[in-house]
Every structure is written in structure tokens, then in C-alpha cells.
């Protein structure tokens, strides 16, 4: 492994602790190592394909008299990650299974078939399957 080796970060467990973390922790970690110079992309499969649906809003969490600000904004985070040259791959069949229309997802993402995943993995030096 060297500084030019490509990494694919595969996120499959969706919305794990996103409210209390204000982020998806896998995407946050991926974004952070990108800022550290890692050539890294993301594959969303399983329930995480819901992350690319436009118009998600999760503010307003209150316990007793305490309201929590800065709610997770995964849609915005993914857009920022794409600006930093992180490719976001999304498994088409996982969208279809969940009834998500491709017209409802973020622009700039790359839809791939589940049959193409093995070939995608071959394009990377390391697969971080969270």
C-alpha cells in the first residue's frame, strides 16, 4: 500500500447513530481520510442507498427541555464529498428494492448494477467494507 493506492469505502449499515453523531460515522471517517490525502471513493449498498434520496430533513430532536442542533445532513455531506473528488457509487437494485426512483436521488452519483460490484472492487487496491 502506498499513497497512490486507491481505496473503496463500502457502507452498508444505514443511519447507525447518525442523530447523536450528527454524521454517518463511516462517511465521516471516509471524508476525513480524503482530507488527509487518501484516494478514496464510496459504495453505498443495502439500506445506505437511502442516503442519496433528495430532501431529507431530520431536525427537531428534543428530549425534555433540551433540543439538539446541527442534525445530520447526509445529503449535504455527500454533495461536499463529491466536490472533493470522492465518487459515490450506488447499487441500482438496492434502490429498486426500496422503491426509490433514480429521479429522486442526488445528481452526480454513479449507479451500478450489483453484477458490476466485483468488477468495481477490482479497480481498487483496498476495500474497506464497514
Amino acid at each position, binding site marked *: *500500500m*502506498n*499513497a497512490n*493506492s486507491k*481505496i473503496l469505502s463500502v457502507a*452498508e*449499515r444505514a443511519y*447507525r*447513530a447518525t442523530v447523536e453523531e450528527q454524521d454517518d*460515522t*463511516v462517511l465521516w*471517517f471516509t471524508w*476525513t*481520510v480524503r482530507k*488527509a*490525502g*487518501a484516494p478514496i471513493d464510496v459504495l453505498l449498498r443495502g439500506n445506505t442507498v437511502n442516503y442519496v434520496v433528495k430532501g431529507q430533513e431530520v431536525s427537531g430532536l428534543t428530549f425534555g427541555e433540551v433540543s439538539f442542533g446541527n442534525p445530520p445532513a447526509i445529503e449535504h455531506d455527500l454533495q461536499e464529498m463529491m466536490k472533493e473528488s470522492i465518487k459515490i457509487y450506488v447499487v441500482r437494485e438496492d434502490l429498486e428494492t426500496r422503491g426509490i426512483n433514480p429521479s429522486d436521488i442526488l445528481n452526480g452519483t454513479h449507479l451500478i448494477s450489483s453484477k458490476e460490484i466485483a468488477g468495481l472492487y477490482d479497480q481498487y487496491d*483496498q476495500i*474497506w*467494507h*464497514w
Partner: protein
Amino acid sequence: MKTLTILLMDPPYETENTTTALRIADAALRKGHKVRVFAYEGAVSLTMSQQKQHPNPVKNQDVAQADHPTTIRAIQSLFKKGPMEWIACGMCVDERGVDFIPEAKRGGPKDFYEWVKDSTNTLVIGTQ
């Protein structure tokens, strides 16, 4: 000597991932390789210094008889086995209020990536 970097995310006493990862670390150290572990999220509690053994009342075992395995006992033993480094994600530590054993150091994702570049291979074990 080769270098294996492992990222763990599960907290102790939750899944089989912890045992499997520590067994992989043990096997690598026994073969003379170097092991680096980055503890992310709940895994920072693996090195929590306040861990205590407890009795097993249903089996009428006191603390000594039960000899309950704690993860810090296993990890501290691995440190004695061979060249090992352990970094606990600092932000994850702060969120959880965890004090960890002195063998573990505080760090962040950038430290993990520096390890990755310098390792023979890397194994990421996330929380499913």
C-alpha cells in the same frame, strides 16, 4: 516482519467481531508480525481502564473462580507478545467519557491512514 493494521468499531461484549479480531492479532504477533489497531466508535471501550471482573452468581462462582475475561487483560497480554500499537479515536473517547490503559494512545482517522500507507495490509471490521 509484515505489518497488519486492523480497524475495529464494535464495543466490547457485543459481537463476535471483537474476539475474532483479537485472535487475528494474536496469530499475527505469534508469527512475528507487527500489529496496529485503530479503535473507532464503541471499540474505544475495549481498552477502558475501569473494566472489572465480576462473579457469576448463577454458577456460585466468586470473582476469582469466574475469572471473567476482560478485553484489557487480553489486549495488555497482546502488547507483551510482540510489536503492537493501539490508537483510540480521540473524539470517540470524549463522547463516551472513557479512560483507557496507558498502552493505548489517542489519535484520529489521519493516524489510521498513515498506518494504512505503511502497512502490508489492512482489515476494516465495521459495525453491522
